[in-house]
């Protein structure tokens, strides 16, 4: 009699314990799955015969909850909770639910409480993008294509023509060694040279004893004919 009473008490205790175990196991699941699997498991529990079979089933549900919670697969399953019937949970929602509420009490995940943990996922994403960009840019920075380019030769500008304009002490003007008879002839020479491009250099070399007035007239004539490149040469003789 006492044995039967003990067995009956044990069976009733198991009948109370098994649903509690299932509810506890369901609370470990992500928020989108806990309601569905809790109802499903409780329903399947009723199909079991009372006793140890129910206890085994409940313990197995605990193991299943840990398997599902730690499953790397982003499950894409349709959930039908008690409050809302139908509606799929996408892989994204499930993955987010997994990262936020896996193996946590259901209330903490579903009641909208503030999660104090820093969401490092976007930080890691940015870090990986920067790392990949750096890795891809390193070969570009160190890689150089060696080309045998032709060396540019410095352009040697043709030396402008130089015209020696000597003025002797007696006032005779020599245009490249040829005596100039008068200033009109010299004016014609200077105009002809002024029209050339580039203009030739006029090397003016008056003798030390030449009168300043003659030299001044030659310079004035050159300026009037727009001679731009004119200069005195051999000025060392004037020191004495």
């Amino acid at each position, binding site marked *: 009699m006492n044995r039967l009473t003990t067995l009956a008490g044990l069976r009733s205790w198991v009948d109370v314990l098994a649903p509690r175990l299932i509810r506890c196991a369901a609370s470990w699941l992500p928020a989108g*799955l806990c309601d*569905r*699997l809790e*109802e*499903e*498991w*409780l*329903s*399947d529990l*009723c*199909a*079991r015969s009372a006793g140890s079979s129910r206890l*085994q*089933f409940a*313990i*197995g*549900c*605990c*193991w*299943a909850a840990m*398997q*599902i919670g730690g*499953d790397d*697969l*982003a*499950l*894409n*399953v*349709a959930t*039908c909770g008690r409050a809302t*019937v139908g509606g*799929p949970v*996408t*892989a994204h929602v499930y993955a987010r639910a997994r990262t936020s509420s896996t193996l946590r009490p259901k209330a903490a995940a579903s009641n909208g409480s503030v999660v104090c943990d820093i969401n490092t996922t976007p930080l890691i994403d940015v870090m990986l993008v920067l790392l990949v960009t750096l890795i891809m840019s390193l070969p570009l920075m160190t890689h150089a294509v060696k080309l045998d380019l032709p060396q540019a030769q410095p352009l040697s500008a043709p030396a402008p023509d130089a015209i020696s304009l000597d003025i002797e002490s007696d006032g005779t003007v020599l245009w490249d060694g040829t005596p100039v008879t008068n200033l009109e002839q010299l004016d014609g020479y200077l105009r002809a040279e002024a029209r050339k491009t580039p203009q030739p250099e006029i090397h003016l070399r008056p003798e030390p004893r030449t009168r300043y007035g003659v030299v001044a007239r030659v310079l004035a004539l050159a300026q009037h004919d727009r001679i731009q490149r004119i200069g005195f040469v051999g000025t060392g003789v004037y020191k004495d």
Partner: protein
Amino acid sequence: MGRADRTVRMSLQTLRVLEAFLENPGEELSGADVHKRSALPSGTLYPILLRLESAGWFVSRWESINPVTAGRPRRRLYRLTPSGLARASEVFGSFTFGRGVPA
């Protein structure tokens, strides 16, 4: 639904679950029914059912009954999808000795 027909790792337990459904491919089975046919413990059975459903091999729905009149809670019923049936048949067809689970 956007379900992806992903590759499912074929374990012996997964084959047993598929075999339970292939006895009558159009039949909807609850977890308890699959347990009776495959003799798999609940800790193994339900993760496999969820993985197969996630992979698009199964679809599931709640049983449309009135729990008060039926005297029991509604059950979650699983059914092979056409693609799941094709994939399962392909898997079992790869065995030379028929549909049976390899020993």
